[in-house]
């Protein structure tokens, strides 16, 4: 068995342990610099993950763990996100209080879970990696022990996360009972006969419930706004990017890669899920006054747009949908990280996360104002930002599948409606930054160098991915190309109609 495939995960886990131990020797006054050291170490890991030393493609642990282009894409993605979150956390440190190194260590452990999720090719590993992510987030979300909102966020996430995990593990049991295996390859090979089994389908549906919780799709989105609002900003950022992307990579691997025929049977379910998620996120975001809560609803809406890719793939069986999802996620990462970098930097200077607190930001810190504006414009999907291209591709994917399926035209109308609504609430933030209200305090907001670098990198990333998306497109194409397995391509999707 090829243990070298999990080198990256092992190194990351080791790094988390090192951070925990290092805490004993680092004096509290310089503990913030621990974050910078950790960031440097994550940079090395990232270099390792995308460099030539990285594990070659292959599978280990009886096919439980695979390394392919899709896994590599997401590993790079998660490492980048983790790096940014660590930098954010060191800026946010004064508000976290005691136990800063534990925060760093837990972030790294969540990252390990995500790295495993990127490679999970078995329902067992899927469950374990997701639980590793979820359990660390129970702690990360409630890390500001003295803030009631943070505790509330942690408890809500714990209860709802526990319930969804229970659903998922029950679903896995049912699937195992029918298929006699939890391996995706075996499921893929048997999907034709399993498609007729109601117990198997119920089991799969329960697994979808667990994944839907991760990505905050309707009807499992209830936790998102409260948790986003209450959690410390860096934890929210990691939840919005890492945890969501982990859910999506597993959705893609299970439903697009392994079980395309079942996915094709569930077309209408995915259409309804995507439409409801977009509508719920967009409509509920309108009255929000808290920036982090707004981001929570926006993250629900974005989960809906991402599901458009799954819808497209459930109708056509082509790779266009998942490619668009990966491109969208790539741009979304830089966008959300830029937004939360600003929120983290502001937390030390502005009480609360009210949108009103942004007033005068244009004068107080042109850098933060420009960074947040760029992120918001990208979220709204307006060129020349990264968010534009992904949205166009997702809509194009659905339109390509639409002829003959009126429900898809309705879905596109919903998506367009959602984007127009989103402009209303996103641009409310821009208004607050530049001309909303009178701010009593017009003092300059100092921004630490790491945050400047992070924000600059995110803004450059947003613009580069918006204007020159070819590189990302190539990576996404490659990642999705390896997904089609012989069994799936041999049995075309039209059989499901």
């Amino acid at each position: 068995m090829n243990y070298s495939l999990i080198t990256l995960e092992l190194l990351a886990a080791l790094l988390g342990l090192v951070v925990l131990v290092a805490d004993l020797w680092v004096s509290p006054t310089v503990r913030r610099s621990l974050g910078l050291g950790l960031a440097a170490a994550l940079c090395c890991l990232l270099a390792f993950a995308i460099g030539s030393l990285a594990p070659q493609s292959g599978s280990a642990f009886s096919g439980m763990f695979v390394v392919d282009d899709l896994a590599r894409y997401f590993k790079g993605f998660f490492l980048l996100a983790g790096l940014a979150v660590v930098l954010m956390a060191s800026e946010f440190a004064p508000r976290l209080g005691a136990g800063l190194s534990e925060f760093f260590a837990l972030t790294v452990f969540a990252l390990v879970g995500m790295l495993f999720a990127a490679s999970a090719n078995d329902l067992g590993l899927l469950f374990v990696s997701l639980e590793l992510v979820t359990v660390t987030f129970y702690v990360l979300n409630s890390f500001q022990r003295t803030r009631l909102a943070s505790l509330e966020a942690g408890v809500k996430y714990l209860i709802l996360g526990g319930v969804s995990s229970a659903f998922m593990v029950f679903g896995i049991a049912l699937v195992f009972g029918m298929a006699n295996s939890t391996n995706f390859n075996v499921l893929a090979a048997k999907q034709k006969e399993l498609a007729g089994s109601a117990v198997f389908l119920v089991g799969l549906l329960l697994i979808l419930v667990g994944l839907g919780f991760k990505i905050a799709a309707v009807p499992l989105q209830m936790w998102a706004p409260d948790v986003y609002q209450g959690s410390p900003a860096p934890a929210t950022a990691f939840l919005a990017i890492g945890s969501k992307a982990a859910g999506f990579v597993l959705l893609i691997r299970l439903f697009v890669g392994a079980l395309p025929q079942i996915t094709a049977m569930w077309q209408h379910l995915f259409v309804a899920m995507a439409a409801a998620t977009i509508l719920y996120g967009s409509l509920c975001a309108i009255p929000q006054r808290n920036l982090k809560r707004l981001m929570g609803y926006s993250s629900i809406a974005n989960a809906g747009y991402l599901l458009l890719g799954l819808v497209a793939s459930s109708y056509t069986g082509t790779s266009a949908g998942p490619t668009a999802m990966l491109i969208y996620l790539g741009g979304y990462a830089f966008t959300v990280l830029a937004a939360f970098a600003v929120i983290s930097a502001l937390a030390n200077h502005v009480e609360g996360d009210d949108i009103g607190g942004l007033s005068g930001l244009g004068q107080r810190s042109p850098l933060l104002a420009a960074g947040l504006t760029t992120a918001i414009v990208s979220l709204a999907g307006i060129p020349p930002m990264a968010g534009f291209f992904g949205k166009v591709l997702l809509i194009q994917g659905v339109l390509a599948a639409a002829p003959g399926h009126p429900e898809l035209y309705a879905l596109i109308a919903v998506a367009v409606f959602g984007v127009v609504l989103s402009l209303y609430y996103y641009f409310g933030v821009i208004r607050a930054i530049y001309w909303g209200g009178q701010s009593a305090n017009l003092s300059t907001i100092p921004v630490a160098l790491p945050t400047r670098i992070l924000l600059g990198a995110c803004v450059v990333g947003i613009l580069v991915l918006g204007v020159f998306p070819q590189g990302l497109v190539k990576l996404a194409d490659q990642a999705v190309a390896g997904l089609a397995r012989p069994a799936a391509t041999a049995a075309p999707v039209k059989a499901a109609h």
Partner: protein
Amino acid sequence: MTAMDSLTPVLLTPVVTALLLLLVPGNLRVVLRAVAIVGSALTAWTAIGLFSRFHPGEAGLQFESMVPWVTVGPMKLAYHVGADGLNIGLILVTGLVGLAAVLVSWNIERHVKLFYVLLMLMISGAMGAFASLDLVLFYFFNELALVPTFIMIGVWGRGEDRNWAAFKITLYLTLGALTALVGLVALYVAAGADSLDVTVLQRHLAAHPLPVAAQVWIFPLVVFGFAVLVGLFPFHSWAPLGYAAAPTATAMMHAGILKKAGLYAILRVAVPLMPEGASRWLPLVAVLAIGNLLHCAWVALRQKDMNLLIGNSSLAHMGFAFLGIASLTVIGVTGTVLLMVAHALLAALSFALSGYLETQTGTLDMTRMGGLLRRMPFYGTALVMGFMAGCGLPGFANFAGEATILFGAWKALPLLVVIAAWSGLVIGAVAMLRALRAVLQGPERPEFARVADTGYWRRLPFVVLLAAMVLFGVAPGLLTTRIEPAARVVVAAHRASSPAAPAGSEAPAPAASAHSPGTPAQSRH
């Protein structure tokens, strides 16, 4: 092909200027203004150079350049720019209006740097939209102006309503643009081509025409989506409100230039690529255009605020443009493009004039003004010339455009032409003349005793715009010889598919429904 013969420099100059502006410290206002003026002057100069080097009388693209941009699966997108008769005039006026917009912005005092950066982004967005031959690239550039518009109205706008106006203009423009985008993508999917390049699509669709059923539902998405950007009745209510609240330069760029991008896209994409859709849907557009001509002109007549007057009458002129497109004749389409160029100059001039008036009087309420001609002889003359051009006085480019449209549309849509000529020209003229009387003539008001005429340098933007209007008014051939070959291409597909459609089949439908918008107008005085 040398670098001079490409459109790229004219696109890049404003972008580079914006980047340079970002490097200048925000408190050096003089430097910021100087950089912006030099950058926009260079853009205008490059645009003039391109216009003069353009070979008139030739069909096909000139100054073409193409670089692959993104390839996703089978879809190839490219940075493909080029000029023909449809856009060369618009590129020219974008340069001129951009320069004028920078020049009139001397009264901006707050956040000067941000203002000029956003203005430069608007100029590059408009240039890019007109130059693009790839539909995604077109959309990309067209949307570049959206965020600057929003921020400019909010930060430097006027009036209590500006918050609402900023949101309204943004939401309308986004709704229109997204609808059109869905239409464009649907067109790409239905065509089965491997690119969203207009030239590729044109060639592909000539060989494999779109099924009529597809054209019939894609065409309205594209046309009505873009028509929202232009302000076609009844999707027009954002325009006067937005322009009244916008700072002068933004209103000039938007009413003058960006609005034309929607018309340009209809002419470039919808009409030539979907001839069947065009013959089904354009009669409705023609009737709605009469809504613009009657309703907006009538509303303009009742305005007391000069910006609202200009905004509404500018919408009324858009009715002519839609009428020209709906005529589907070479003459009508040529006239539409001519009018687009002329109206870009006129709208920019009008908003520049009203903006200057506001800096002097502190108000735009025309009922409170009077006798200003004596105090401001140069300004007054410019205002008379501008508003006379708005009435359609021969000698200005607008007359040439409107007259050409009426000639072109006469055969296809006789009744609508009668209504248009009567309403657009007569009601419009009454509105303009009443405004001139209220502002310039009559007794002088004591509260405006300190109003001053434009200084020497401040005249430059007005002179530039007026000169271009008179030049194209006296010698419209400069434009029409360039436009006509391209206009032939636009209507060629339509001619080929349904030779007898426009005159026979369309007249009854508009005739029946055109009476209702006509009635309120007849009850006038």
